[in-house]
């Protein structure tokens, strides 16, 4: 939290803004994050009836019965979750700024890795690894031998 606030305060244009006002957006995001995951857990557990999960060895009839039994709460719970699902975006956004250098390293590595895989490794393999063993030249087969009936 402090990192985000300190980054924002680097801008000289913001230096006149009171420190408390600068951090309010971070507080709102953090509290939204907490409320969203609370609502998500409550929705999944109490409305979606996803906890405990149905056993994997249940039959089709049992699955259909389970959905028939809970269809109202599943629909209400997951419809609410569809509306508030954007909270996941806010939780991803928190800390994104401080993760920027890490993202550069990851994306850079992902770009470099195919070049290594496609060019560098095959080049070194060609230079230093023993090549495929050359096959012994087969004796030429004459047409007379090829057409001859086996004895």
């Amino acid at each position, binding site marked *: 939290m402090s990192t985000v606030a300190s980054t924002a305060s680097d801008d000289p244009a913001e230096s006149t*803004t009171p420190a408390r006002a600068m951090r309010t957006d971070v507080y709102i995001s953090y509290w939204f994050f907490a409320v969203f995951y609370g609502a998500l857990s409550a929705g999944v557990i109490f409305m979606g009836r996803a906890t405990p999960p149905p056993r994997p060895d249940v039959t089709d009839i049992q699955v259909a019965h389970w959905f028939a039994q809970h269809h109202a709460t599943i629909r209400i719970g997951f419809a609410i979750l569809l509306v508030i699902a954007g909270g996941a975006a806010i939780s991803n956004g928190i800390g994104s700024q401080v993760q920027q250098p890490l993202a550069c390293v990851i994306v850079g590595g992902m770009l470099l890795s195919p070049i290594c895989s496609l060019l560098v490794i095959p080049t070194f393999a060609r230079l230093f690894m023993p090549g495929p063993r050359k096959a012994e030249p087969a004796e030429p087969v004459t047409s007379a031998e090829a057409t001859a009936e086996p004895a």
Partner: protein
Amino acid sequence: MQVLLEDENRSAATNLRAQQAILWSTPAVAAVLLVLFAAFPGFFPPMSPNMTAAQVAEFYRDHTAMIRFSMVGFNLCGILIVPFFVLILARMQRMRGQSHIFAFSYLSAVVAGATLFALSDIFFAVAAFRTDRSADLIQVLNDLAWIFFIAPIGMLVAQFVLLALAIYFDDDRDPVFPRWVAHYSLVTAVLMAPSAGAAVFRDGPLAWNGVVSFWFRNIAFAVFVVVMFLVLRSSYRREARESA
């Protein structure tokens, strides 16, 4: 020092020109998306959730070519609308009186929303991929496609709310966007949010073909893009005047 200042000015001007180029590409992208939307035979009128499995399978058999054309087109071109929202993100990063937390969250919401839209295209395309399979399976894929297309509204709602919050936190003396954009953004969120009901209702205005879930949702989104295009254009013009 003089050279450094000139370099910074040149860089800012180049940055502004690049953003304006993306902005002016938006009408072309919007026109392509509109053509693809009109090309899908299931949107005019939108297919009913009450169609039987046999009717759904027949629809996919009768319109396979146009469904494939529109959905492959959406998969290729749908993502091109993302740079437009990145322009909004870039403006949000210029807003003062806040950290960049709303802007980064906005980016997450844009990316996730675009991914969900792409998934719905894929389900439509998969339903049209083997039209000779059982009608029940085609109906399942059709349900998935429609519900993925209409119901997951959370990421769009988050976008509108985050934009509004960023504008409310902006400096009143020199705002990047006028204050009414925040109110308008919240109104759009309220108009679009009920379309989550498409995952629940099969009749009425909240069904996926209903007035609220289909027409309000899509028209509100299209109008928002048009309004934000004009707002962004005005913002760039003001920045160009100030830098000149």
